[in-house]
């Protein structure tokens, strides 16, 4: 049965292999070239300086290397969707569209085994490509430090999507969605269209809701606010405001009214903050999702994608068992 699945997906498997070889070779060539440029331009000291200047012109290096690094990053971001569209959808839908599932269903092999073998043969090589691509591209990009696309920190949508378990869970989700819609629609094009829309919708939805998925870390300071987190790009400020003397959050409208009144009576901050304190704003708080919390966020988001994936696989199995 494995042979049949391998033979049927020969084209897809060859494509995956070519992508793996060409992609790996490209990274293995580009990274040392980039490091050589970095060295010759004397930019090693700029790798961890963030947005601050490092006393050297960064522009020539970024002009040469930013585009290829960005392209590799975007490639890794869309790879899961491509796998869903071109491996997940046709895997069973092509059989159903051409009617050859009837051939498979009337031999000794059970429908469940038929489906699982096909999934294994299509999915495992795709996951190998994703994992290899993820390691190599992150290895390359991290060598460019703050001069490359990773400088915006782990919470930027384009960085979050290529790190930790994200590429793997996106691939599993896209693949299972493709598989399900293909079997449901029984047509390649319809399946691909629904997969494209479904994938983008869930990705965008979780992109929007992402920072609500875990509880942030609260930093409390006296007035004026001295947390100094506004300019920091590598962490996310979820909420901020005032606490009263008991440590309860002061409702925004109350704080805003107080602020308006205090602004009207104050010349500068030395008058403004005592005025605010007088009106019950004892402390200032900032709710942050800090850089070390990225892993936890990945796991929570990953669990949601994996849950949806499991449901889609189960639904596909039900469809396959009922298919005539």
């Amino acid at each position, binding site marked *: 049965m*494995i042979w*049949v699945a391998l033979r049927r997906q020969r084209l897809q498997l060859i494509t995956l292999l070519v992508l793996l070889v060409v992609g790996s070779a490209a990274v293995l060539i580009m990274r040392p070239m980039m490091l050589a440029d970095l060295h010759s331009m004397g930019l090693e000291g700029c790798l961890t300086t963030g947005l601050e200047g490092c006393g050297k012109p960064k522009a020539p290096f970024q002009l040469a290397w930013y585009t290829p690094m960005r392209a590799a990053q975007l490639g890794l971001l869309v790879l899961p969707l491509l796998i869903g569209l071109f491996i997940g959808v046709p895997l069973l839908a092509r059989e159903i569209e051409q009617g050859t599932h009837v*051939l498979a269903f009337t031999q000794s092999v059970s429908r469940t085994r038929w489906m699982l073998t096909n999934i294994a043969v299509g999915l495992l090589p795709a996951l190998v490509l994703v994992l290899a691509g993820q390691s190599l591209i992150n290895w390359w990009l991290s060598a460019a430090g703050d001069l490359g696309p990773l400088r915006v920190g782990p919470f930027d949508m384009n960085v979050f999507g290529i790190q930790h378990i994200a590429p793997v869970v996106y691939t599993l989700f896209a693949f299972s969605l493709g598989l399900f819609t293909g079997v449901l629609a029984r047509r390649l094009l319809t399946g691909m269209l629904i997969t494209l829309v479904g994938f983008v919708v869930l990705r965008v939805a979780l992109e929007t809701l992402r920072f609500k998925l875990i509880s942030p870390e609260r930093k409390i300071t006296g007035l004026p606010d001295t947390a100094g987190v506004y300019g920091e790009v590598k962490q996310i400020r979820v909420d901020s405001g005032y606490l009263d003397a008991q440590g309860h959050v002061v409702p925004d409208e109350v704080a805003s009214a107080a602020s308006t009144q205090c602004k009207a009576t104050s010349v500068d901050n030395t008058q403004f903050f005592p005025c605010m304190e007088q009106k019950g704003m004892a402390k200032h708080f900032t709710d942050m999702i800090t850089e070390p919390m990225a892993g936890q966020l990945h796991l929570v988001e990953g669990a949601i994608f994996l849950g949806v994936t499991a449901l889609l696989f189960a639904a596909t199995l039900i469809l396959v068992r009922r298919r005539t």
Partner: protein
Amino acid sequence: MDGALSCSGLGKKFRRGWAVRDCSFELPEGKVVALVGPNGAGKSTLLGMAAGLIRPTEGELWVHGTPVRNRTHPDVAFLAQSRPLYRDFTVREQIKAARAMNDRWSDERVTEILDLLAGVDPKAKVGELSAGARSQLAIALALGRLPKVLLLDEPLSDLDPLARDETLRLVMTEVADRGTTVVMSSHLLGDLREVCDHLLLIDKGHVQVDGDIEDVLAEHRILVGPADSPEPEGTLVSATRTERQATLLMRDTVSVPDGWAGTEPDLESLVMGYLRAARGRRD
């Protein structure tokens, strides 16, 4: 339930209605069964259920006494009307694929059959074969399963007379060599008569006639008589009338009344009579 293929109270309901309803029969072993009926009578649904491909809504189906449940019975091989084959495989790869998907398999049987049929090149792509060669390859693959019951859905459609003859001979050899029971649906009644010895006629999902062809033919009479005379005793299956003459297909007629000429129908006119009656009921 005994018999090669039997069912009781079998029914299948699709969204648009019942395709097969209340079907009960017991097909004897080693027979070649002609499954006939008008388009949409439920032949393909019945074969699909027997193949374990379609799950019955009600009733049960047995192959050699063991129930068929949501998968193809190990003793059954099925040739679907669409002849599903991997079109981008070569003939050799298609055979390898079928072997890989089966627990019981005989490569010798497949090669033996394909050798009998000149013109199937093992290196040719399945999609490039003629319709006849594709059908024959599909039958060879079905026989590679060494079935005791072979279900063929319209095996002769799309075949030229030569390929039809070759295919029928293939089936006959299988029956003679291995005693396989064959159930074959077809519209080509002339061809069926040559090879079939049992008739299963269904219409609107119900069994109308089930029996040995010789017995069935003996039970029926074609009566030709004047148009204005009263209908003779027995069960009228169908009638065609002109201004002067009536031609009746009767079942269980005791005697031929005066003024009428009676003959035993051939398979073609018997089936035609039932199909005409079916159309009459439909209109």
